């Protein structure tokens, strides 16, 4: 099959070749990257339409490699590949305008293409070694797609690679456990119940890798830091889209293929999912750097997917995967709009922005669609998948396990999380796009075609997926595995009809407005008890939810979070440094002490052996 070789290795090879071109030709590199990713998207679409099955990539250069390059093209992999291809193309187009010479990451387009190829490889791989190879490469490209030229971004890059690289080591351990049990490296092999100690250990190891990649609690802490400092196109590409797709892909493989979950595993996943939803969104409420705010939402949304997959029912799995797709669409889109705003204004603080809807209408429209989608407002796609998750949880409640009995808790947390998401996006939209346009921002212009086009395409897909989820989207995308012959996935929500009603209402409103002869109105200042309207009277958007932070119960947690006591990276760091300080006291540099060590060591060995 020629198509798969091209799909995976063509972008990687071109990416490596692009290293040879000098940085000055970045436009040409960008155009090549766009062409390659466009070709990749086309191949990905073809893959999606091809028949499922196992394929062997024949490697003519080194025939012995073919064994490792077995690909498993099933429904799940095809779904992931389709969206990786789509995002690759859109983000390459966006990067073409966004990435500028000299100011950005060195070798951006090379790493971009290598990322694309290895993500496709990871999604299709059926041999564990090839999978972990591609998976690990993604950690490396993530590290290379951020520019560590100041202290904070260097720290973010370091933290990211330590967490991601560390989780890759754990993944290797998990794979070693699986290999021990099956004696085979093939992923599409037998599955295990999580009951034996070895199976449990393997399950936990693989889970750590999946959750770290997707960015779920407690391994999420690299996401907010990374997106705050990385170029927006990098953030949209990896943490918001590809890492989510792949992390959830691995989680889906774990829950659907590798293991049959028993009670405790389901409970664990549900706890992780719910905590992720709530904790991350609580943190997001208080951010005033809009990229970091989006980063916390990128974490929070993972909670829904984990919850959906944890349910294990066809509805739950479909809901989790649909939410994964939707999230990649709107979260990637949100990062693109964030990048547009940052590029045009150079400001990344919500408090210093405002009123941009007048000067950047296209970006505003796209951001509004994404914000409504992510907040779960009908009839957009985010609502649909969340609604499926709620239904899934309610159905799940009829079971008999402990996790099933607690269904009301999971449901409540998911709904509250959704409400808080809406709250924080009100802040984002109103802070950036609404309100008065500041004078220093009045010269801002809309971004160019290459940047608004991807945003609008993503927005259009969000609307389409929301309107036609039941009719056209879910039957096409989720027709594999346990979901294949389940006609109940779509549920009772009739999105087109409801949307039509909403549209009619809006139209009526517009007609009434126009009938009222809008040209004949007078303009006057807002009346606020006789005071003059001043800029100082504006609320800063970052103060919207300050009261929450000041509540006794929460203020304690927020303080701890500020001190990074919940950050697994910092916990690990302090443990290791404590060990180090003990060790460094022993390494005193005094020769006689060292001689004592040698003698003592020898004495102990003699005592043990003789």
């Amino acid at each position, binding site marked *: 099959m020629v198509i798969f070789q091209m799909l995976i290795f063509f972008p990687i090879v071109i990416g490596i070749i692009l290293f040879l071109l000098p940085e000055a030709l970045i436009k040409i590199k960008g155009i090549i990257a766009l062409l390659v990713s466009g070709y990749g998207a086309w191949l990905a679409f073809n893959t999606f339409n091809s028949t499922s099955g196992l394929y062997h990539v024949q490697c003519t250069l080194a025939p012995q490699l073919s064994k490792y390059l077995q690909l498993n093209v099933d429904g799940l992999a095809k779904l992931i590949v389709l969206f990786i291809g789509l995002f690759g193309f859109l983000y390459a187009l966006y990067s073409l305008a966004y990435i500028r010479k000299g100011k950005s990451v060195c070798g951006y387009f090379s790493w971009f293409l290598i990322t694309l190829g290895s993500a496709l490889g990871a999604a299709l791989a059926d041999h564990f070694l090839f999978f972990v190879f591609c998976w690990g490469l993604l950690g490396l490209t993530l590290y290379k797609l951020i520019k560590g030229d100041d202290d904070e*971004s260097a720290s973010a890059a370091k933290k990211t690679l330590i967490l991601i690289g560390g989780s890759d080591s754990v993944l290797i351990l998990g794979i070693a456990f699986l290999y021990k049990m099956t004696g085979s490296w093939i992923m599409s092999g037998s599955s295990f119940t999580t009951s034996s100690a070895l199976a449990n250990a393997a399950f936990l190891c693989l889970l750590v890798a999946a959750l770290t990649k997707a960015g779920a609690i407690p391994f999420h802490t690299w996401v907010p830091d990374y997106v705050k400092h990385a170029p927006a196109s990098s953030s949209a590409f990896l943490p918001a889209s590809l890492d989510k797709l792949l992390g959830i892909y691995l989680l889906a493989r774990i829950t659907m293929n590798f293991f049959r979950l028993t009670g405790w595993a389901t409970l664990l996943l549900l706890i992780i999912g719910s905590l992720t939803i709530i904790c991350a969104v609580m943190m997001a409420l208080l951010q005033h750097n809009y990229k970091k705010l989006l980063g916390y939402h990128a974490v929070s949304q993972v909670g829904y997917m984990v919850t959906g997959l944890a349910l294990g029912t066809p509805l739950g799995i479909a809901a989790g995967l649909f939410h994964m797709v939707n999230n990649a669409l709107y979260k990637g889109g949100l990062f693109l709009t964030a990048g547009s705003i940052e590029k045009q204004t150079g400001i990344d603080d919500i408090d210093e922005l405002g009123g941009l809807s007048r000067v950047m209408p296209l970006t505003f429209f796209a951001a509004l669609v994404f914000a409504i989608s992510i907040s779960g407002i009908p009839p957009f796609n985010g609502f649909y998948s969340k609604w499926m998750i709620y239904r899934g949880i309610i159905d799940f409640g009829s079971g008999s396990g402990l996790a099933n009995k607690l269904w009301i808790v999971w449901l409540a947390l998911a709904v509250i999380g959704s409400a808080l998401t809406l709250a924080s996006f009100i802040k984002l939209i109103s802070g950036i796009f609404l309100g008065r346009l500041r004078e220093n921002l009045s010269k801002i212009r809309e971004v160019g075609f290459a940047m608004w086009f991807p945003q609008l395409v993503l927005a259009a897909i969000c609307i389409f997926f929301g309107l036609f989820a039941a009719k056209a989207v879910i039957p096409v995308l989720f027709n594999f595995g346990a979901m294949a012959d389940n006609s109940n996935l779509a549920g009772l929500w009739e999105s087109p009809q409801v949307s039509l009603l909403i549209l009619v209402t809006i139209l009526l409103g517009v007609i009434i407005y126009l009938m009222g002869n809008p040209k004949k109105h007078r303009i006057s200042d807002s009346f606020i008890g006789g005071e003059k309207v001043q800029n100082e009277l504006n609320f800063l958007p970052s103060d919207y939810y300050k009261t929450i932070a000041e509540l006794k119960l929460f203020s304690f947690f927020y303080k701890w979070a500020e001190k990074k006591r919940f950050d697994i990276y910092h916990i690990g760091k302090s443990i290791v440094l404590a060990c180090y300080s003990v060790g460094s006291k022993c390494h005193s540099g005094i020769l006689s002490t060292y001689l004592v060590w040698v003698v003592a060591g020898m004495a102990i060995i003699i005592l043990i052996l003789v």
Partner: protein
Amino acid sequence: MNAMIPLFVIVPLAAAFFMAILGRFIKNFSKILLNLELLFLSYLALHFILNTQGILAYRVGGFENAGDIPIAIYLVLDGLSRLILLVISLIGLLAAFYSTSYTRQFTQERKYYILFSLMIAGMNGLVISGDIFNIFVFLEIAAIASYALVAFGIEKQQLEASFKYQVLGGMASLIILLGIGFLYWQTGTLNIADFSRLPVSGPFVKLLAIFFLVGFGLKAAIFPFHSWLPDAHSSAPSPISAMLSGVLIKAIGIYAIFRIFFSMFALSYEIAMVITVLGTLSMIVGGLMAIGQWDIKRMLAFSSISQMGYVIVGIGIGMILLATGGSKVIAGFSIFGGLFHLVNHSVFKGLLFLNAGAVEYATGTRDMRQLGGLAEKMPLTASTSLTASLAISGVPPFNGFFSKLIIIVAAVSAHFYWLAFIAVVVSIITISYFMKMQKYVFFNTPQTDYKNFRAIPLPMNLSMIILALLCLLLSLLVLPQIRDIFITPAVDALINSLQYTAVVIG
């Protein structure tokens, strides 16, 4: 063919004497001669690997065995020694080439090259010796040359480090010599192959094993005998640090231990267990100590202890399996992981020390807190250093990823679950301190404006580039065809250790 085996010792020894005599009169003579010598040795080692198989034995002086008793000095070349010889010559060649510009700062350049050549002679001699006394002699040649090289800068710090190294190294030699004396007193033979067929057992053998384990363990810097290494390896001139960490501790430490415990003594579960436990402890202690260091080279030195732990654990698991009659396939896999990591480590740790040398050469400091932002000023050093850091941390597509993966999978396959878990944790610690180094040295905002910045000369850059490419290319060693040429013979040599006696004596 066999007649060419002594060249591994003769060439570097002769070169050292020529350098001492002619180098005085001809400018740059020593530099060129050392590079030529190592080029020849690399060729020779490669030639032996590609064109010969099995165990080759050469009797110095051609003395025939008197009946059953070997009289001659044996030089033996098996799969393992071929591999180590190639590593010594190749890393040596690149370090020597790098030195040609690096040593301009020293007043006595010639002596540096003489000592370098002697160190090579010592290591090569140790690797091909077939009897324990010659191992000792060559060990001392290599060690004494390295004492002098550590002190080569003659600053206070270097002299102190060298002194500690000498005292502890001297202690190691003493313990080894004691063991040798003991051995001769009890059995009347020093030949490895001859000893291995003697029916000896009991506390005597155990005591002997302990002497050799501690003595060579000191040279290999296994916990708790590692204390000299951080000082010595960080104080030496950088190419020498690369040689010490990249090659010397492997040749005179690890190689000697495994040669002795595989070929000389009958495999015993207790010894194998002790070796594995010590390797695990080295892995942990080295990693934990490395993470707090601010001196680049000191950090790298601690990291060497930790990485040597991986090598020892890999081979140790194989030893345990062989001693207890476990699966030979898994044992072979595990030993392969260990030897693969040994080769990889010599490449990336050599490269990291050369990088550290380049940073020190360019900026005059190796304190991470005073550096930063060097990725823009020295892109080549930065990218090669990132390559090596990622390779040692086990990130694909570099070689370290595969060797760590194999060691972890082998440990799990052999039921050593906790060991595999520790290896993973230490691997996370490893990536942490290398990311710390990358952040403070190459990223971040610069802490100074680098007034005395010096550009890196071509030979130094070239050596680093070649090593970085090797980090990538050595990944190919996992492929069966390439593995069978380079590493499988070494693994077979360890697994079928009984053949050693049969071929050498028989």
